[in-house]
């Protein structure tokens, strides 16, 4: 943990351990973190219902390689329509590996394919694995052919992926749509416990 609790109180009692899509939208709704715009109707909920993210996970006591969630490295996948870039980075932005379809030897149109993305993902995973990265948080940006493939196939190069954060609209202006998308990233949160899936 150790994350700043500027939005402190955890309403652990009010919120069931298993968080479904409804909670997801709630969470997205009422937290106005720097850069996130408040969303829709749920944004109007009282300011008292704030959630400290790290507190949830401390309560969950989930660990990956002995690391708390905040310290698991991150794999950024930028899947554009013409290319896919993958960079594995530690939690404090120390780089582990960076690949793209171009570094894997594909050229021009072939870079914008799923196969190229798959190759890039596996290469990035292998390189990061060589530096000791086992578990990864996946942040996916953009809608392109490498989006799903990159997230899945890092596994074959040696990562176990642990959560995915999608950020499809990489160029969507921040205040444009009713989903109130950030300029760079817009995601939905869902922490599913082991026993609960999402229907």
């Amino acid at each position, binding site marked *: 943990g150790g994350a700043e609790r500027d939005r402190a109180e955890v309403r652990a009692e009010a919120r069931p351990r298993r968080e479904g899509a409804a909670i997801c939208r709630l969470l997205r709704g009422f937290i106005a973190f720097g850069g996130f715009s408040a969303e829709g109707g749920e944004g109007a909920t009282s300011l008292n219902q704030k959630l400290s993210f790290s507190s949830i996970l401390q309560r969950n006591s989930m660990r990956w390689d002995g690391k708390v969630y905040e310290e698991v490295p991150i794999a950024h996948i930028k899947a554009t329509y013409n290319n896919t870039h993958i960079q594995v980075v530690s939690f404090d932005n120390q780089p582990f590996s960076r690949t793209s379809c171009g570094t894997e030897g594909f050229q021009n149109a072939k870079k914008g394919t799923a196969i190229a993305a798959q190759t890039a993902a596996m290469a990035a995973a292998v390189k990061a694995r060589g530096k000791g990265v086992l578990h990864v*948080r996946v942040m996916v940006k953009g809608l392109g052919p490498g989006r799903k493939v990159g997230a899945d196939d890092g*596994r074959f190069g040696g990562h176990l992926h642990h959560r995915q954060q999608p950020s499809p609209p990489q160029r969507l202006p921040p205040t444009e749509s009713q989903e109130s998308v950030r300029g760079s990233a817009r995601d939905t949160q869902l922490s599913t416990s082991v026993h609960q899936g999402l229907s």
Partner: protein
Amino acid sequence: MANHLRFVGRTVMVQNGNVEAAYGVLNRILAQDGVADAVRRSRYYEKPSRARRRRAFEACRRVYCAEMARRIAFLARSSRQDPWLGC
């Protein structure tokens, strides 16, 4: 820490290493929330006039589909109590 705030509200956890399922969950949420559509639409600019027409069309379509579904469900009722029981 600021590094982690960007994950709040944006995360799908992967269970048992099952990335495909988690990705499906993610996509479903994005689709339900209309994010995926919005992104696809914003790849090319949509003129305001077209956007207005599209929204009006979608509203009408929603109403129509709901009404049609309601009628079909009404007609398709099969297991219900006999209203004339005892007669």
